[in-house]
Structure formats: structure tokens, C-alpha cells
């Protein structure tokens, strides 16, 4: 884990350069994942740093979940170990820039996160439903029942 600790330090250093007004911190998650919080406004720059400076090209997926206080997007990257960028979003204004310009592979993950949690990916070229029917009118299925008004409502 010593190697990964140094990797996390170098990453933080580079992230502070592109987004100087944010206090970046790293933590770990099993099974061997570095987790770094990134504000939505710096996401594109952070991903560019990962790709250009650290050769992290592989976006495994995006996990979208409702934590109550906020909605959370976890961008799971992989390069000789897992690196997760965590973006917290306010539930009433969940917007984040799209990554599809640099990473066409983000297309499906963003569409799924969008329909399942109601997050808007700004600049996405075709934000239609990926898995849900085109005429789906209910709340996004992964939003907490309370917030969405519940299935019974």
C-alpha cells in the first residue's frame, strides 16, 4: 500500500494545481481503491489530469446513489489499482458536466445514472433513456422513496 499512498499524494498535488480553491483529500476503500472528493465544477479538469498526467484512461463505471443529504456520483477509474472520484450533488440541483467529449465510453454510464437518479449531465450529446422505457414517467427508480413521494403516493 506504500506505493498507492505515494500515488494518492501525487494525484492530490496535481489536482490542487488545476483546482486551487478546493481542499482535496484522499481516503481508501477496500479492495484497493483510492477515493478523492472532487467538486462538480472541477470534474472535467480532474479527469483530464488523470488521463494526461497519470495515464488513467479506463473508466470502469459511474455509481449513482441517493445518500439522503446529497446525491452521489462515484467515477470508478482503473489503472494498476482503483481510483474513484466522488462528486456530491445537491438533490434539488443535480448537475454535472458530461465526460463524453474526452471519453466516449462514459455515454452509457451517464445515461444510466441520469435516468436512475435524475442527474443532469450537461452537454451530453444524447441524454435519452438507456434501460428504462422511453415513456417512463415515474420518478427515477433509485431516488429515495421519501424524496420521490414514494411508490404509493
Amino acid at each position: 500500500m506504500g506505493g498507492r499512498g505515494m500515488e494518492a499524494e501525487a494525484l492530490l498535488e496535481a489536482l490542487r494545481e488545476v483546482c486551487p480553491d478546493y481542499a482535496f483529500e484522499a481516503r481508501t476503500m477496500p479492495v484497493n481503491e483510492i477515493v478523492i472528493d472532487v467538486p462538480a465544477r472541477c470534474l472535467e479538469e480532474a479527469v483530464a489530469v488523470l488521463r494526461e498526467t497519470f495515464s488513467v484512461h479506463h473508466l470502469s463505471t459511474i455509481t449513482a446513489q441517493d445518500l439522503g443529504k446529497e446525491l452521489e456520483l462515484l467515477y470508478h477509474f482503473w489503472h494498476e489499482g482503483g481510483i474513484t472520484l466522488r462528486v456530491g450533488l445537491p438533490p434539488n440541483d443535480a448537475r454535472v458536466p458530461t465526460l463524453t467529449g474526452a471519453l466516449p465510453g462514459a455515454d452509457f454510464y451517464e445515461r444510466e445514472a441520469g435516468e436512475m437518479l435524475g442527474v443532469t449531465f450537461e452537454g451530453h450529446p444524447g441524454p435519452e433513456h438507456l434501460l428504462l422505457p422511453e415513456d417512463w414517467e415515474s420518478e427515477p427508480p433509485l431516488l429515495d422513496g421519501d424524496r420521490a413521494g414514494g411508490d404509493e403516493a
Partner: protein
Amino acid sequence: MTRVTIPVGPQHPLLKEPLSFRLTAEGERVVDAAMRLGYVHRGVERLVQDRSYIQNLYLLERVCGICSHVHTTTYCQGVEALLELEVPARGLALRTLTCELERIHSHLLWLGVLAENIGFSTIFMYAWRDREIALDIMEDISGGRIAHAVNTIGGVRVDVEPEQIRLAQHRLDELQSQVDELVNVVKHEGTLRVRTEGVARASLEQIRGHCAVGPIARAAGLDRDLRRDAPYAYYDRLFFNVITAQDGDVWAATWVRVLEILESLSMCRQILDDLPSGEVATRAPRRVPEGEVVSRAEAPRGEVVYYIRSDGSDKPARIKIRTPTLPALSLVQHQLKDINMADVPAVISGVDLCIACADR
């Protein structure tokens, strides 16, 4: 020239599972392609939240009808990491044995599907005949040919007797000679080469851009395999080669997969020849401490990712599943542009799609 839109799917002889393509053709040339997913969306990620960790084993095994075991492997690994459980060596060995048998069966199944789709029925029949041997071994070990229910949190549910080991070794010898012959056919058979060489060629750049994984990525020269790069289960104790190629076309992917079958056969033998003794599982508590984990494993089609978050109860608060077919579909949608209509079957079957996996 007039443009014609041709729907392929959701029900179509070319597709084994429901998926819809809309191909726009100018004469014999496909100029544009759109895709629609979700015909077998079952909402597994929502369903898991209402089931206990043990019940979820049986649900998650059914995410995929081909690589069912790797899903429970990835899930169990994640939950075991949250519980800080040490799985006994025999349990890990048997878990890995099933993973590799599953890879053999999946790759042979795929070879048959590709062969049938390009009109080469002989290979289809040989490949599926040989696949039966792998299924027989799994049936003998677990009782199930496709859904094995081998994994449990803390190890595996089945043990093998010396008699079963001997039978499996004998069957592996039989399978080896059949696969050797298949490798020969794939290498020298002109018909297969003509229909696959240069078809759906993916550059390393495209593979990276679409985040593709598994044999299609390795066929384009991306040297990544989680069994070697992030060894899990029993892989750190096995000797094997990661197979790569350079061309990135359907033929290269075929070559990578048939050689991977040989590697898997060798791994199965290594496990059976030197199976550690002892327990196959440790007892796992029902409740899982609060925490989150990202678990990865190398399925036959490439990296499977599970994100699991526990809130301290006996049910997971969130499980995110990413199967290798999703990035493969992203690549295929791109590859279906500017090709000959006659190459569509080779392009679609070349990436080895598993739609139920992708839809969840």
C-alpha cells in the same frame, strides 16, 4: 443514393437475446447505426436492496445466464472484504476452478455463435459439442450446468471427493484434445479468416475511448487482465499467460479467446492436481458492518465491477453492477458505421455480447 433504415431486433435470428439496432444503409454499405437497450431490464440494482446478503447470492447469480459464477464471485469478494473474512484456501481454489470452467464454456459458446453467424456450421457444432464437457464437469461438481450456486459469503458451498477430481481430470484431458483441434482449425481454416480478418478492427485508441475490456481489448494490444494485475481468489498461486494480439479485428479476438481456453484448461489442471486440504468456507455473520467496497473480477468477457455499500444491516444499501458488455456495446455502436451489410453479423457477434448482463 437512397438511404434505407433496416431494423435488426429486438427479435432477430442474428441476436440470441433482445437488443435493437437500426441500421441505415446506402446500397450495401451501412452508414449509420443506432441502438436501443433495456428489453430485459429487470431492475436488479433496485431488487437487491430488499433482500438479505444471502438471498442476493441467488438473485445476482441470475444477472447473467452465461457467466453466472463470476457475478457471485465478485459480490462475495466485496462482502468478504467488508466483513474482513479470511476465506480458506480450498474454498478459493474451488471458486477459481469454477471461474475457469465457466470461461472455457463461455468462450466455446461464443466461438459457436460466431461460426453460426458467419455461416460456418461445422465449427458451431464442434464448439458446442466440446462445451458440453465443461458443463458436465461443472454439473458433477455443483449439480448445476449453468447456475452453479457454488459461491457463498465466506467460501464455497460444495466440496469435491477424490473420485470427482479423477473424473474431472479425465474429462479435461478429453476436452484438451478437442480444443487443440479447434485451435488448429481457427489458425488454418481459410473460410474463417476471410470472414473475420480486418472486420471490425478496433485501434487501441478506440478501445481506450470506449473503455472496452476483456478479450476484445487484449486483441487490440491492451495488456490488461485482472487475474494477473489485481490477483483475487486463487490466481496468485497459478501460472498462466495473458494472451494479447495486435490487430484488434474479429480474427484477433477469436485467436485470443481460443488461446485463453488453453490457459484456462491449464489453470483447472493446476488446481485439481494440487488442491489444498481443509475447510471450504468460514461462517459469515448475517449483518455486514457499515462501509463501502469496489470489487472487481475478470469475467470471460472482461472486467466485472461491483460497488457495494452497507449501512450496517443485513441488507445492502446499494449495489452497482457494471458488466463487460456495456462498454462493448458502446464500441459496437461505433463499429457498425461504414461497413458492409454482410459484415454486420461478424461485427455484432465478434464482441461477444451478453444482453441480459448489460440490462440487469
